[in-house]
């Protein structure tokens, strides 16, 4: 197995203006073949997780309701309401299941996500 450092493999892609994202709501970006769900929470923080709901297989997590569970930013799948942590991608209703998480940042008002 080849181990590469993150700095050499993360490719940042600009996806939208920060203001394109609504507070407490998600949107989806297509980066290569990855569908990435982007979220802007009430306090202005950004999160990025895989868009595919691992329970139904549908690409829908960006359309879920954003909120908090025990203080942790989370999103509920619109399909069957399983809740995922926006921080770790772990399903808070079934911790054996998780979705991928992606680095996300704002540069000059533009949102960028990192794909390894």
């Amino acid at each position, binding site marked *: 197995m080849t181990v590469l450092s993150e700095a050499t493999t993360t490719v940042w892609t600009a996806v939208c203006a920060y203001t394109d994202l609504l507070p*407490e709501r998600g949107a989806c970006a297509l980066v290569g073949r990855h569908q990435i769900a982007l979220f802007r929470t009430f306090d202005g923080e950004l999160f990025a997780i895989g868009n595919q709901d691992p329970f139904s297989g549908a690409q829908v997590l960006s359309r879920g309701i954003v*909120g908090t569970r025990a203080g942790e930013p989370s999103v509920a799948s619109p399909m069957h309401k399983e809740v995922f942590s926006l921080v770790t991608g772990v399903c808070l209703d079934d911790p054996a299941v998780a979705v991928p998480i992606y680095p996300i940042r704002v540069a000059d008002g533009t949102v960028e996500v990192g794909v390894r």
Partner: protein
Amino acid sequence: MKLVVVGHGPTSSRLVEALVAKGFGGRITVLGEEPRAAYDRVALTSYLTGRSAEDLTYPVPEGVVLRLASRVTGIDRDGRTVTTADGHVEPYDVLVLATGSSPFVPPVPGRELEGCFVYRTIDDLDAIREAAAGAGSGVVIGGGLLGLEAADALRGLGLSTHVVEMGGWLMPRQVDEGGGAVLRGHVEALGLTVHTEAGAREIVAGPDGRVAGLVKPDGETIAAQVVVFSAGVRPRDELARQAGLEVGDRGGIAVDDGMRTSDPAIYAVGECALHDGMVYGLVGPCFTMAEVAADRILGGQAAFARADLSTKLKLLGVEVAQFGAMDGALDVTFMDPVGGIYQKLFVSDDARTLLGGICVGDATPYNTLKPFVGRDLPGAPSELLFTGGPASMDLPDDAQVCSCNNVTKGQVCAAVADHGLTDVAGIKGCTRAGTTCGSCLPMLKQILIKSGVEVSKALCEHFAHSRAELFDIVRVRGITTFSQLIDEHGTGRGCDVCKPVVASILASLGNGHILDGEQAALQDTNDHFLANIQRNGTYSVVPRIPGGEITPDKLIVIGEVARDFGLYTKITGGQRIDLFGARVEQLPLIWKRLVDAGFESGHAYGKALRTVKSCVGSTWCRYGVQDAVGLAISLELRYRGLRSPHKLKSAVSGCARECAEARGKDFGVIATEQGWNLYVGGNGGFTPRHADLFASDLSTEELIRTIDRFLMFYVRTADRLQRTSAWLESQGLEYVRQVVLEDSLGICADLDAQMDRHVASYADEWRTAIEDPGKLRRFVSFVNAPATPDPSIAFTAERDQIKPVLLPLEVVRS
């Protein structure tokens, strides 16, 4: 194994249900004498006040062979067959006799005259109703439980009613002389005439040969055109006698603790069975017999033990209850002749152990004290009667709370804990407690409250309030945003439970378009995209077709839109057309086409009014008595867009044939010659429920005002995702009637104003969305590639239409 059951009444029905539920693998054949399947005899009288035979009928499990109008005439025990009156021969390996009982008709001269009836079956009730139509007065022979029930029925049919009782007072088996006197006061206050220490010497005919009156032993004649015998029942044991099975001296088929007769291949259950010298006529012990027999047939060891004969009922509006023993070393009586209340407790000689009790007029002690029979009293007897007892009376775990289904407090508590139950409906579903006579429902609620589950009314971790409380907070404080509400009355930042609830409350109170400003972030995906998400992440679109009426031109537009966007089409159960397979970026384009053709959103995505279905009504139908389509359209247009705790469905039928299935709806309307009958609280779905008659013969204007108030009261007070059916059960039909019809809370003007605001502020959500560029920008699959359709969505073909290809799962499992 071939199992044959003779008789199809409540006990037989319960037996078959238990066998099927426990996985009985053989063939079950039920031979019923009546022309209809088993029905709820406890609720028989309600048949005369509007419930249909179908309402009262128990469901028959899949796979069971039910032969109706098949009276069994003989049992061949050697050949193991039974023969019916029409010559059918049915072989059995195991036979169960559930033949019930027949009303006892004393040998009074004239008892065969036309106009004499018994009170046991739906056919009996039909005949009584027919006879009552041309009659002025009626007499019931027998002042017991069933006799008063029959008297209530005659009174309801408009007859001047007499009750003739042999004993010294009414209901001598349930109450003592003092209780009987109080009961008599109640009954006479209703206009009934009571004759005690009286019987029938003769029933006399008039010149037409029909019943004209009853002659009492003292020679007095009571004029009556209808006579109902209700002087007790006798077990139907004639088949068993014929077949040489052991029967009791005074009737009844002798059975052992496992409900087995003297022939090991034959069981007997219900009112025909004689166990340990006792025949039971109450539904509770009969159901227990059915459960025991089912268990034994499947190889179990269940045993029937002497049953509790406690009863609580409401007759002629009077609560009457008896529990435990009817005598004791000491007794304590509370009597309120003004309020018509009589309560008596029987206790042991040291006044510490409760032995039994009698209640007339107020059966509260039955609910609170019955579980303490045979145990130490929870307080001084007089205190228990005067004050209802100390506030925290804790029942022991083995105390029986539901005697109909033999469920203990411990079993209820275990079900609450194991299944995380939070309401009485859940307890009913898990334990069957409260599903038969319903008298233990208040106790179930108490157990739930005390069980520490706290029946948490908290909506979720963010709000400690129930939906109804939040509604009032928002309404009274004039709150218009989620942020303000959660800052002032909650914690954290909300979730998928509380956000849509608050969105719905804000929308019910008329706070603008559901996608305006911050409200957009509160909506579930369906409300957010004004369409219904489907399993592959695409959406379906349902334009409103009010009342199911649509022009050919509009039908063509729907067809063209579906064809042009490649959508799958299906007719819905609500008389409209659902278009499936739209991607988010297609939605505004589809709406544009539909809105331009005069359509609007059908709110299929919302917890809101869905449709008002209708039959074709008097315009076309030769049976119709009112314009069902016209009313359905006006109701649908009035309530469209009304956000509510759950979806709302409605229907209007133009005559009593009920083709629109209005009684399966949250609010249903059925035309009468005089106007409209309103039914509420119906439901299909997981827990079907027929709607209850709420008000009769309303004018259109009265009808609309009543529905306005009913809906707004529901919107204000229901829990999250609580359909009207569950809400109505939790509030009680009578209570909702008082609030809506009599304005008992003084809020009707407020409810009216709220509905008027809703009607005035309605706007089509699709049109508003497509006219607002800010809202339109959300309708893209990808924020960074608005023109790119989601490549993961694919379709294949089935029956000439599209069908989704589901994505393989990329599940990360650690």
